[in-house]
C-alpha cells in the first residue's frame, strides 16, 4: 500500500500521473483506477467527473483516506473486472 497526500483540486490527469510515478508504471502501460465507495463497491474512475464524485462522497463520509485500487491493465471488455481483480 502506498500513501500520499494530494490537493483536493487535483485533476484526473494529474492523479494518473501521480499514480504512475508512485507505482512505477510506464507511460504507455494502461491503468485502471477504482475507489471503494461507502457501500464497499469498487467504482471505476476514468474521468474528471467521476473523480469529483469520489471526492464529494469521500468528504461526506470523512474517512481517513480515499482508498484507490490501481490495476496495471484494463478490462478485456467493458463491464468485466480487470485481470486479476476479485472480490478480495
Amino acid at each position: 500500500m502506498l500513501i500520499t497526500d494530494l490537493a483536493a483540486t487535483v485533476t484526473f490527469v494529474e492523479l494518473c500521473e501521480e499514480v504512475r510515478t508512485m507505482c512505477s508504471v510506464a507511460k504507455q502501460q494502461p491503468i485502471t483506477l477504482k475507489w471503494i465507495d461507502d457501500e464497499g463497491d469498487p467504482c471505476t474512475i476514468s474521468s474528471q467527473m467521476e473523480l469529483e464524485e469520489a471526492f464529494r462522497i469521500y468528504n461526506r463520509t470523512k474517512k481517513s483516506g480515499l482508498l484507490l485500487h490501481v490495476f496495471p491493465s484494463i478490462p478485456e471488455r467493458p463491464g468485466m473486472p480487470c485481470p486479476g481483480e476479485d472480490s478480495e
Partner: protein
Amino acid sequence: MNKNQRVPSNRSLSAVEVKSKFGAEFRRFSLDRSKPGRFDEFYGLLQHVHRIPNVELLVGYADVHGDLLPINNDDNYHKAISTASPLLRLFLQRKDPGFPPDLSTPHFTLLLSTIWSQLKRRCSVQMQQIGSL
C-alpha cells in the same frame, strides 16, 4: 450534451447521485436534479461513462420498493430522477442476448431462484418416490 456537465458543490442539495452498474463495473457521477435533460442525452451519457458508445443498452433502476423499473423514455427517466433520494441505482444490460448474463442483476437472480426452487421440488418428489419403493 450532459456528458460534460458537473454539479457545483454549492448546489449539492439538488444533486442526484447516480451509481451505475454494467456487468462487474460500477461508475458513480452526479446530475443536477433541476436540469436532468432528456432521456436520449442521459442514455448517451451512460454509454460515454461506461465506455460503450456502440452498445445498445437496457437501462433499469431500483425504486424505493426495490423493484427494477425500466428507463427508456423521458417520462420514466424524469420519474426516476424525482424519486432519487439522492442515490439513483442503475442496472445496465446489453440488449444483445449473446453477451453472458450479469449474474448479479435482479432479473438473473430471480431466474436462478426460480430454477433452484423447481430443482428442489423435483428432487423432493423423486426422493419420495424412492422412499415409497
